[in-house]
């Protein structure tokens, strides 16, 4: 008995919902940022699962296009973390807070 594709997809969906719940419920901007990373990684897990369960046409190898896409996602996520954390530091310099409820100058 080995895990099927559905197992991996459901675990990936649960991880995505955990990240979504964190973004909706937490108030610290750094923790919200960490939860964004969780959601990106849930997408990575489903991509790798699809890549392993579907062979490249005409071969008996996993479909490496999915894994290359995961590679790109990881690179973009690393760049995103660097820029996002720089913005958070700039924000903290001007407002002295990382609490999203204190950042309400654009609130309607």
């Amino acid at each position: 008995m080995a895990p099927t594709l559905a197992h991996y997809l459901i675990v990936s969906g649960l991880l995505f919902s955990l990240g979504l719940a964190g973004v909706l419920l937490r108030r610290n901007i750094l923790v919200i940022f960490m939860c964004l990373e969780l959601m990106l990684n849930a997408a990575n897990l489903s991509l790798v699962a699809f890549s392993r369960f579907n062979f490249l046409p005409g071969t008996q190898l996993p479909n490496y296009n999915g894994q290359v896409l995961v590679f790109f996602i990881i690179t973009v996520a690393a760049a995103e973390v660097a820029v996002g954390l720089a913005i958070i530091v700039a924000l903290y310099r001007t407002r002295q807070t990382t609490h999203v409820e204190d950042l309400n100058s654009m609130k309607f």
Partner: protein
Amino acid sequence: MELVLFWIFSILMLGFGSAVIFLRSPVSSAMSLVMSFLGLAALFVLLDAYFIGIIQVLVYAGAVMVLFLFIIMLLDIKAERRRRLNTPAWIGGGLVVGGVVAMLVKVVMDQPAFHVMKPEIGDGMFDDVRQVGETLFTTYNLPFQIIGVLLLVATVGVVILSKKEIK
């Protein structure tokens, strides 16, 4: 055997993932995130994606989390004060998340194409890193170079953002 490993690593990943949300101090959240990423890397290895698993450990559990911990240290963030619970937000958030979970489970369970076993990889032809590299440098050569430019732009942007005053 593989199913047992799958459940161990999934529960590790999801357990530490919920710890990210439910722990109050940002440092504990960051450390739980590291453990969650390590569980995810183990799942990648279980899916025969060795290269992606190693990249996951190096980039996420290594670089990205060190960056997070540095910022937490730099800003000297204390554990979140216990504020009164914002009930409408929690109910709304719970409803949205529950809806997403229910929809995903329904879609995955109803699709017979998803209830398949892993096909066996052909004998003596499995060289993960070479295959990923070949795909990366032939089919996806242009996106690969664009990613390089993106990293350069991100580096320059971070330097400009961290300057004392933004003109």
